[in-house]
């Protein structure tokens, strides 16, 4: 705005500078002039003035300040800016707010005349300068304008020229197009001809081939290169088919067919010849298939031939491998190093190595049919298998595999769908067949299914034969630990590798699953056998212990009157300890290392996590089954031959029950700890040998086994209880039968003489047996209390027993017994015996009420106190209750009742020490028996206590 005004007023600037103040108030141009003058006057340089002027012009032409900072300096710019925006300085010449009057007034006020003159001069000079500048600018711009006008004129003339040129060009191009169309049309006919001629040429080439075919085929027939013949024939077959209406071709076709029939016959001969190898047969089948033989008949024949061949192969292989060792240990001697590498190859990473011969066998071997046998043997020579299994794999299994794969490709694959085609093609051994003729049998679905089933059967037969052979290699000797695990592992390793490399068999008959089954079976048997050995050992130990217990019992019988040898109890305890220790030792030293050895060998089938997990699972299951077997056998033993030889089986169940408790107490857990420490060791498996290192901090049973462990501990405990209860029940029953039998058959209680001479024979016998049983129980279970005191107690009991032998009752050391006896007799003392019993009878109701409040007596119950007291009391309870029951079913005479009285008193005195657990019960049972007997006696005459005592004492004890 200000800049716009600038040039306009510049023309008016020349009028004399100081206008009258009042008139120029609205005029800005003089201000400007004055400003410039003031700028110069205030010491501004000329450059500064020019620059300012430029900036005005720049503004006028709309050119934004390109570079104000560099050109003007920030100061200048900012000052003008700030002058405009912030404060309005009326004395600034360049400011919009410049006021001429004030400026003039200021000048007039501030300056003297010379100053004013000088200011005027400056202003004038400035104005001139500005004027000059403007003129220059105008001139420059004008010259530019002129040149532009010139240029425009020139352009105008050029364009006129261009238009005419363009029109000419269009015309030319039109001409070219028309002429090319003419050429094209003129050449069209000839091209067609050339095409036809081309076709004829190729046809002629083909025809030539066809015409030459018979001769070629003849040559092939003579040269026995049937493959070539079939190949050629197949190529031309469709041609012949196509032109068969032409006589020439029919002739050729006939000729060819005749030759091909010959060839086919030859092939058939080859195929059926005795010497034909598997590969030859398969190749022939392929050729015949290509000749469009009837596929159904063909596959049947193929199958049959191959099976024959396999049979022969098998027998030959079997003969061959007879001489071979089952296992050649990794070489120790240098010359064997080559072989080691092969066997090691088949052992460790030989997946690749062992696969190579197979593939070479199936592909190259079959294609290069004539020299197949040689080539296979050649290919196998460098890796000549040194042991039976790898030989078998190379010579038998590979053939089976090859057969299966070929058969599948020939007959089965196409139906499987074209999606598989691409992969299937790779597998087809004779490549040219698939490439050229797409040889496969066009079978109907049913035929296909039938073929599939029969080949499956055939293959599984072969495979099962193979597996049978393999498993026949795995021998399980009586002594399982004499097995060399590396041999077995090697055999199975080969098997495993065979499964890895035999894809076809795996797909067709689940060969891998079968092989895994075999391996599993092997593992299972290994484990079972090793554990069975342990079990047998354990049982033998138990039996041994039994017999020794029986012997000691016999010795006790003989030396019953003399103090027994003091170490019987300890001996038996030691034996038990020894048995369990033996078990642990065997487990730790034999079984576990044996399994470890199997596990730690380099077997590949155990290397995989799942193989290993399976093996461990087998071990776990086997171990669990082992315990079950042990327990079941114990139970069986306890019931076996029970009626025949009751005593021994009785002892055996006693011994076994204690063994069970012992097992459940610690041994089972101990064994599981060993198991988790060794075979189940978590983390990376270390090499064999490390298991021998004993660490002292026992690791707990690993969680995987914990459940098993607990279950087994429980079942051991349960079995122990069962055996013990069985022992108690049987012992009690046997004693009871003794009592009842004797009473009911040999003695007539009606006519027994009175008073009885002594204790009845039955009770004497029972007492004798009870003593024996107690000794057995003590030897097995120990006396109550600590084991050290054992021997003393038992000897004391014997001493106590001998107390009665001297007739006098005043021996020292038998205070307990005597006082007890007196007490029992005292109840008789107050009244006469008769009145006592009468009284009791009268108070039957009262006694019944007593019973009401007393605890129910359970006779056959689980024995909870696993010691002498508990067990013996269990027996006594059964015996006395049985007596009480049997007395009820009898009728007594006078003597009979008195006999019962004497027997009961005898029992009170002598059975006391067996019944320390609950004396009251024993007394009440005996009392009840006497009561019953009294009631069942026709003329009861109870003996008085003294008589009873003297009778007991007088009997030969």
């Amino acid at each position, binding site marked *: 705005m200000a800049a716009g005004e600038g040039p306009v007023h510049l023309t008016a600037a020349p009028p004399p500078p100081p206008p009258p103040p009042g008139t120029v108030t609205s005029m800005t141009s003089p201000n400007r002039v004055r400003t410039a003058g003031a700028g110069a006057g205030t010491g501004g340089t000329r450059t500064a003035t020019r620059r300012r002027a430029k900036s005005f012009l720049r503004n006028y032409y709309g050119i934004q300040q390109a570079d104000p900072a560099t050109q003007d300096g920030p100061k200048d710019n900012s000052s003008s800016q700030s002058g405009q925006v912030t404060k309005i300085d009326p004395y600034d010449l360049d400011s919009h707010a410049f006021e001429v009057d004030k400026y003039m007034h200021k000048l007039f006020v501030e300056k003297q005349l010379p100053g004013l003159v000088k200011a005027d001069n400056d202003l004038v000079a400035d104005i001139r300068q500005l004027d000059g500048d403007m003129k220059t600018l105008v001139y420059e711009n004008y010259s530019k304008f002129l040149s532009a006008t010139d240029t425009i004129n020139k352009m105008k003339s050029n364009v006129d020229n261009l238009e005419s040129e363009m029109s000419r060009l269009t015309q030319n191009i039109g001409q070219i197009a028309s002429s090319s169309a003419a050429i094209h049309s003129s050449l069209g006919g000839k091209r067609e001809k050339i095409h036809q001629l081309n076709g004829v040429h190729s046809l002629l080439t083909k025809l030539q081939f066809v015409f030459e075919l018979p001769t070629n085929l003849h040559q092939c027939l003579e040269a026995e290169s049937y493959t070539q013949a079939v190949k050629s024939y197949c190529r031309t077959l469709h041609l012949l088919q196509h032109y068969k209406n032409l006589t020439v071709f029919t002739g050729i076709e006939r000729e060819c067919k005749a030759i091909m029939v010959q060839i086919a016959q030859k092939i058939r001969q080859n195929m059926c010849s005795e010497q034909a190898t598997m590969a030859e047969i398969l190749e022939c089948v392929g050729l015949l298939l290509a000749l469009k033989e009837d596929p159904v008949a063909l596959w049947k024949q193929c199958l049959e031939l191959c099976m024959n061949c396999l049979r022969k192969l098998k027998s030959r292989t079997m003969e061959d491998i007879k001489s071979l060792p089952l296992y050649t240990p990794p070489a120790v001697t240098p010359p064997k190093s080559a072989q080691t590498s092969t066997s090691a190859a088949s052992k460790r990473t030989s997946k690749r190595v062992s696969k190579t011969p197979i593939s070479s066998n199936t592909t190259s071997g079959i294609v290069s049919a004539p020299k197949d046998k040689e080539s296979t043997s050649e290919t196998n020579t460098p890796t000549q298998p040194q042991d039976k299994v790898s030989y078998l794999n190379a010579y038998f299994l590979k053939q089976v595999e090859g057969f299966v794969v070929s058969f599948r490709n020939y007959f089965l694959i196409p139906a499987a769908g074209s999606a598989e085609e691409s992969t299937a093609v790779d597998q087809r051994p004779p490549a040219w067949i698939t490439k050229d003729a797409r040889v496969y049998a066009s079978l109907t679905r049913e035929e296909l299914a039938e073929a599939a089933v029969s080949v499956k059967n055939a293959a599984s037969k072969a495979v099962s034969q193979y597996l049978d052979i393999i498993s026949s290699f795995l021998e399980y000797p009586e002594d399982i630990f004499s097995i060399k695990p590396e041999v077995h592992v090697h055999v199975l390793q080969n098997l495993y590798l065979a499964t890895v490399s035999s894809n076809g068999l795996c797909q067709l008959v689940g060969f891998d699953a079968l092989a895994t089954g075999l391996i599993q079976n092997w593992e299972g048997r290994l484990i079972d056998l090793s554990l069975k050995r342990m079990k047998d050992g354990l049982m033998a130990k138990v039996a041994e212990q039994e017999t020794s217990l029986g012997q000691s019992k016999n010795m006790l019988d003989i030396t019953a009157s003399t103090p027994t040898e003091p170490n019987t109890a300890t001996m038996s305890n030691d034996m038990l300890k020894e048995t369990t220790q033996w078990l642990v030792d065997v487990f730790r030293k034999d079984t576990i290392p044996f399994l470890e050895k199997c596990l730690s060998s380099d077997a590949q089938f155990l290397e995989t996590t799942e193989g290993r997990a399976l093996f461990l699972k087998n071990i776990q299951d086997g171990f669990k089954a082992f315990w079950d077997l042990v327990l079941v056998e114990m139970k069986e033993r306890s019931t076996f031959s029970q009626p025949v030889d009751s005593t021994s089986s009785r002892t055996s169940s006693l011994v076994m029950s204690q063994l069970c408790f012992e097992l459940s107490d610690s041994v089972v857990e101990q064994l599981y700890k060993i198991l988790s420490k060794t075979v189940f060791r978590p983390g990376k498996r270390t090499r064999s040998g490390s298991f021998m290192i004993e660490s002292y901090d026992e690791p707990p049973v690993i969680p995987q086994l914990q459940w098993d462990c607990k279950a087994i501990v429980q079942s051991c405990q349960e079995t122990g209880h069962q055996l013990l209860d069985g022992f108690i029940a049987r012992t009690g029953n046997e004693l009871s039968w003794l009592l009842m039998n004797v009473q009911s058959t040999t003695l007539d209680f009606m006519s027994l003489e009175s008073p009885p001479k002594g204790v009845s024979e039955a009770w004497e016998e029972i007492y004798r047996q009870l003593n024996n049983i107690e000794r057995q129980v003590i030897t097995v279970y120990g006396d109550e209390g600590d084991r050290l005191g054992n021997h003393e107690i038992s000897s004391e009991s014997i001493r106590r027993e001998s107390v009665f032998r001297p007739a006098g009752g005043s021996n020292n050391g038998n205070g307990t017994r005597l006082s007890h006896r007196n007490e029992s007799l005292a109840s008789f003392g107050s009244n006469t015996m008769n009145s006592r019993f009468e009284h009791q009878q009268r108070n039957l109701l009262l006694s019944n009420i007593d019973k009401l409040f007393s605890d129910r007596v359970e006779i*056959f119950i689980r024995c909870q106190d696993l010691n002498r007291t508990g067990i013996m009391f269990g027996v006594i309870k059964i015996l006395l209750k049985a007596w009480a029951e049997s007395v009820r079913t009898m009728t007594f005479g006078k003597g009979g009742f008195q006999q019962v009285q004497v027997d009961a008193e005898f029992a009170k005195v002598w059975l006391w020490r067996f019944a320390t657990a609950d004396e009251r019960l024993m007394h009440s049972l005996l009392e009840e028996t006497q009561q019953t007997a009294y009631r069942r006696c026709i003329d009861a005459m109870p003996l008085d206590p003294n008589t009873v005592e003297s009778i007991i004492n007088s009997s030969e004890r």
Partner: protein
Amino acid sequence: MEPTEHHSCAYGLRHQTRCLSAIKSTDGKSRFIIGTQELLKPNEVHLLTFDEELFEISATTFSHPHEIWDISSSKDDPDLFFTCYKQVIDGKKVQSKASLWRMKQAHKNEDDMDHDRLHHHGPSGELEHVLSLDIGDGSVKKVIWQDSTEVISVEDWRICIWDIDIKQGIAKLTGSIDTPNKKFKFTSAVMNPHAQEVVAVYGRSIQGWNLSSLKPTFTIRDSQPALILCIDYNPNRPFQVATGGDDCKVRIWDVRDTTAGPIMVIQDHTHWVWSVAYNKFHDQLVLTSSSDCQVNLQSIVSISTGADYKYGDGSDVEQEQDEESDDLTDNVQDVPTDGLVQAFDQHEDSVYQVAWSSVDPWLFLSLSYDGRAVMNQVPSEEKFKIIMS
């Protein structure tokens, strides 16, 4: 004589007792007879009649000359029963005999009723001796009715078959079976309700004989460790017998397969099992009594005819019973299952015999040696389960 919360009703005889028998009912009331066993005192036969409405037992007593070891009432005539009794001859010898008696009830004297009740003696009647079996060695322990004209007596060493003519009072021996094992006496026997067969137990063995040919039909020998004390034949299911023995166990056998062992073993007693009785109406209910003073009511539904109804054939459905029934019925509670239904412990002495009522399928009487007879009922929950299933 008062009902308890278990719906049981007790009757005291004040004598030692071993035997009872259920009587065929003519008027729908459950009746039992009990024989007392007192060597030195006069013995009695008590006829107990259970009045369901009043829930009490009324008794009629008859005096019996000797101590009674076994009693068995006729299946046809409610007044006829056999007793096996022992008598002492000359103070020297005990001889047991078996006689058939007819009860002759005196007319009830209303005036005497109260007086009698006070003394626990109901109205009394007389026994009329009909006939005696002419037992040779005098060791008869049990008489079993085959029908109204044929009975079987069990002795220690032989079993005799008799034709009896009640009207003329004549018994004729028609055949006998000797014990196959001279070491063991016969302990008990039972008639096969499905055939002409008697099944006896001796020692550890069970053996059956055809009644007409007297030839053994089957033998289960020594297949258990215990002496067998009692036996009962499943009334609804042929070939199934239950035995109890001195090892506290009750075993159920299928006599067709003599080597297979028991098809079920029940152990809920803690002493010898003296008596076992199938319920005639629901053979899944079995009563056992023992010298541990308990009477147990067992359910063996899985091998009973109850299982047959449900599954259509005779095949044994044992363990799956529970689960399968769950599928069949909505309410699990309503399905009877195997196992102890209830243990009755009202006795204070050995319970030697237990018998189901002949008319009420849920009622039974047990008798202990101290002369206490207790009438009990199947718990109603079990009853409903059986009815609903």
